[in-house]
């Protein structure tokens, strides 16, 4: 028995969601080997560090032809790796690419898939979120092999183990198997990606208009946070659509979510209620957001935000 982890990388760099997945894989392996598979060019230095989180070996597809993401091709590589080490479990981070790969890998390996897992396996199965964070489902797989796609920010990162050995890996899939060609990648630079952010500052219709968003952005900058918004705000084009969180937007699970001028409609909460700590700032003391918030200020955003930003800046400067 062994556990395979898909070590997603962007241009050879690994991120927190991958470290969480490796830590999780190590914790479920119960001493069995944890092997990572990484696709595309990456330095030996970076690959070795995956061992710190618990991978004893990294299988590396060191081939520039595999740099771009084609879910069909990548799923074949990961499944081949799983078969080559006889893995009984495959762990991925439930990121955009993880979500594209996990179902394909599950079919290839004829394995039961637990998507959006948030906890370690227990007697009842693995806990995952359902009904847009309004519930959990303990899920059992009925197959010899299991695929687990771990929600980012749901599990700890634990380093401090030994470096991994790096081995080159060649799968049955060839560069000519690509069907999806990548024409252009538009990275939003200089901004914390919303899905990975530990702190999120979010604004709603209470902010009155796009011209007031500097208040949100300044606070986010002081906190090293990402910015988000409610659906009407992106519908009115005050903010880009990829900032829209909620039932029909994206689901996030930061450590801290600060909701400013957002009423707290059930569809909005669906995307953010998994946040560890919630702060709501709203002029209306009856706003539904206060029912799920941990901390609240009943007040005018235009008055509170500058003061809050100053206090945060002072705290950050002092620490």
């Amino acid at each position, binding site marked *: 028995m062994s556990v395979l982890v898909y070590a997603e990388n962007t241009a050879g760099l690994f991120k927190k969601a991958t470290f969480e997945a490796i830590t999780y894989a190590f914790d479920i392996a119960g001493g069995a080997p944890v092997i990572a598979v990484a696709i595309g060019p990456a330095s030996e230095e970076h690959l070795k560090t995956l061992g710190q989180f618990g991978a004893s070996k990294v299988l590396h597809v060191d081939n520039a032809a595999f740099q771009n993401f084609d879910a069909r091709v990548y799923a074949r590589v990961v499944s081949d790796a799983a078969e080559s080490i006889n893995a009984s479990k495959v762990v991925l981070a439930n*990121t955009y690419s993880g979500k594209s790969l996990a*179902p394909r890998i599950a079919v290839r390996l004829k394995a*039961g898939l637990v998507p959006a897992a948030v906890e370690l396996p227990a007697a009842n199965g693995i806990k995952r979120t359902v009904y847009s964070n309004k519930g*959990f489902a*303990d899920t059992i797989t009925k197959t010899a092999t299991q695929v687990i796609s771990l929600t980012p920010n749901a599990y700890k990162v634990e380093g401090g183990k030994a470096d991994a050995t790096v081995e080159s890996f060649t799968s049955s899939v060839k560069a000519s198997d690509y069907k999806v060609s990548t*024409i252009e990648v538009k990275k939003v630079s200089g901004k914390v990606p919303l899905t990975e952010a530990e702190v999120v500052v979010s604004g709603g219709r209470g902010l009155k208009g796009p011209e007031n968003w500097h208040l949100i952005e300044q606070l986010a900058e002081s906190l090293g946070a990402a910015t988000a918004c409610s659906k009407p705000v992106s519908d009115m084009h005050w903010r880009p659509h990829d900032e829209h969180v909620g039932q029909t937007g994206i689901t996030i699970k930061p450590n801290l979510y600060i909701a400013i001028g957002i009423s707290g409609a059930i569809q909005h909460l669906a995307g953010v209620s998994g946040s560890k700590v919630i*702060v709501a700032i709203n002029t209306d003391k009856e706003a539904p957001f206060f029912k799920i918030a941990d*901390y609240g200020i009943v007040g005018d955003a235009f008055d509170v935000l500058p003061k*809050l930003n100053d206090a945060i800046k002072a705290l950050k400067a002092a620490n």
Partner: protein
Amino acid sequence: MKILVCISQVPDTTTKITFTPDGKALNSVGVTFIINPYDELALTKALELKEAAGSGSVTAITVGDASTEPNIRKALAIGADEAVRIDAQPLDAFQVSAMIADYAKDKGFDLIFTGRESIDFNGGQVGGMIAEMLDWPSVNVINSIVFNGNKATIERDIDGGREVVELETPMVVSAQKELTEPRIPNMRGIMAARTKPLAVVTPASSELLTEVSTLTLPPAKGSCKFVDSSNVQELVDLLHNEAKII
């Protein structure tokens, strides 16, 4: 352009979710079921693509029991040419995907559309599974899709940005918000839907790879601690010292 759109039926977005006492199922008393919002976008975009191509057909397919018929009729009213209901209780993404892939495999579809995820089970699994079963390429969470002959140019979300990709039919794609605005059925559509074909298919087999053992609600939140708006410093202190989050 021959397009298949996968439609799932989910509780209305305003539903207060509760589970049956044994924790095995949604308490569906008083719950209104709707077409999954992302699937509505997929359906609308499929119609737009057919119209842009000037020919073709849009088939809506659902795996579900007879109670899903009002929603599949709604898909016809929105504009699908025909509908298929695979008569089974959807219990597992692999089961649903295998049934849809089995239906689709010899029908000559150019494109299979799903939603990015169903808002009940949120797995986002079915599209990728169908694609793998058919050995087709798949592109998830797309923001735009334009065809030039059989080649599609697609913009999709990736972590921390967007990506433009190109690929040829057949393919599986999943819809998300920015793709289009959902179409509302009009009176003519509703009338026409009554006479459009709705085939009920019995699945050849039904295999489940997973099972939900218990459904639970999130733990109740403690009450909100209020800080006076004239004393925001207190909030910062609480976040720093009590919540230890900043």
